[in-house]
């Protein structure tokens, strides 16, 4: 078996989600090749070659891959698919955008956000907002998968893979990037943070969200997240949302502040190692899954917690 993993990067550095995808590939078993497609991304390929378990890095360097738009990338991956039994990427927004397009070009199914590898053709994934665990078996010659990063540890270093340069495919030319607006933050990235402080509707306003949660997050070195209700109310940006349709996180410590615990939210954080819930409603469903629950007014409890740390 031979597995192609699509590396995610910004032409300068490899995204850590790629390391989780490599681990999933190793669990499937077989020769792991890593595709690094971009513009001026030679350094990324060099880094990728040191990932433990990677047998070969395939480097495709051309201007039309510089912004990683799915139309061009999918054509490239599909053209290079021959000989591979599996094609994987992390289930990031980039992976979710690209992989169904790759699968359709190859006329095979795609399996989204797997959380477990049973056999090389059988995988576990969640449906219905994490309420149902489904085991599916693929009959296709190539399995196209996205993997939930929190379900697979990151691969380590220590590899010495060969870097092979491949020819680009033709530029499809139907889309172009106008610009990106990335939230700049000194805090760790939400998806990979060891500690996450997440705020909900109970905070009442964006001012409260920042005034109460930022000092707490600073003390803990935590990333900030938000429930859908908090994002809908404008307390926090869209990409802070944790849940079924936002980000899935599994930190060592997850602190839910003023979050009731709707199933759609729980779907995004239930694999956290330790869950703390602070809510004034003792009946809030979040307490049913919290390791430590504190019933109280968050306007008193959160500053006290910050001070006690």
């Amino acid at each position, binding site marked *: 078996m031979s597995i192609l993993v699509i590396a995610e990067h910004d032409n300068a550095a490899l995204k850590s989600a790629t390391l989780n995808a490599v681990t999933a590939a190793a669990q499937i078993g077989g020769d792991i090749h890593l595709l690094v497609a971009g513009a001026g991304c030679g350094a990324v390929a060099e880094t990728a070659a040191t990932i433990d378990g990677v047998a070969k890095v395939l480097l495709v360097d051309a201007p039309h891959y510089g912004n990683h738009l799915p139309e061009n990338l999918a054509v490239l991956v599909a053209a290079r698919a021959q000989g591979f039994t599996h094609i994987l990427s992390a289930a990031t927004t980039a992976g979710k955008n690209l992989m169904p397009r790759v699968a359709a*070009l190859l006329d095979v199914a795609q399996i989204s956000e797997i959380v477990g590898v049973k056999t090389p053709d059988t995988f576990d994934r969640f449906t*219905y907002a994490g309420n149902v665990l489904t085991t599916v078996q693929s009959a296709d010659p190539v399995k196209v998968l996205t993997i939930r990063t929190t379900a697979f540890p990151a691969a380590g270093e220590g590899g010495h893979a060969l870097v092979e340069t491949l020819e680009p495919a033709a530029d499809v030319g139907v889309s172009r990037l106008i610009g990106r*607006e990335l939230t700049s933050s000194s805090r760790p990235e939400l998806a990979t943070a060891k500690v996450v402080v997440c705020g909900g509707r109970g905070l009442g306003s964006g001012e409260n969200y920042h005034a109460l949660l930022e000092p707490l997050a600073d003390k803990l070195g935590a990333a900030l997240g938000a429930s859908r209700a908090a994002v809908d109310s404008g307390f926090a940006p869209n990409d802070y949302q944790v849940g079924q349709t936002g980000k899935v996180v599994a930190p060592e410590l997850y602190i839910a502040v003023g979050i009731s615990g709707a199933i759609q939210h729980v779907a995004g954080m239930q694999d956290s190692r330790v869950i703390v819930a602070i809510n004034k409603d003792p009946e809030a469903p979040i307490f049913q899954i919290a390791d430590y629950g504190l019933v109280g007014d968050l306007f008193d409890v959160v500053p006290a917690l910050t001070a006690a740390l």
Partner: protein
Amino acid sequence: MKVLVPVKRVVDYNVKVRVKADGSGVDTANVKMSMNPFDEIAVEEAVRLKEAGVATEVIAVSVGVVNCQETLRTAMALGADRAILIQTDAELQPLAVAKLLKAICQKEQPQIVLCGKQAIDDDANQTGQMLAALMGWAQAAFASKVAVAGNKATVTREIDGGTETVEIALPAVVTADLRLNEPRYATLPNIMKAKKKSLDVVTPEALGVDITPRLRTLKVAEPPKRAAGIKVSSAAELVEKLKNEARVI
């Protein structure tokens, strides 16, 4: 220009789903069904494009059992002009749905297909991207803003860590994220009017599309439940537990 909006009938988002005792699937008998919430956002966006004079016709399409007609009537009550049901009782997977939608696109020649980014039942997040690939069109998935000018669309997309804006050539597929708009409620007069709008029914066979599933579901189970822990009475006690018991800080 025509806008095509695929809509899916799913278990309502408020329903707590139950796995069948034999592990063969999810119990959907006597369960409230609704339009997939992301598809509602897609319908709203299409109707707004029509109200802005950009779109001339909004066509809703659904694939599935005869009851999907209700979902299509809802789409028409929200402002879609007519509807097409591709009726089948067979199991449907995203690739098959994308192929069926391709057949409809070839017939109707829409300039934009606006769909929800994912359905809240299978959580696959695939059909729009697959349709774009099969048509050889551009795609803008997870849209939070759509502007159409001439034969191009400028779409702001939600990505990890922020947003990006792309310009795509039309025809194209756009998939709606949560905050693209806030869908309107169907008014009673519009619900009545929707009953008189045209709803065509076709079959996968008539469209010449093979919808054989590629994936076999071996088992459906409830994931292991997380047990509730303990209640602490103060911030100080919480810090003590996190330090000495859980050892996470």
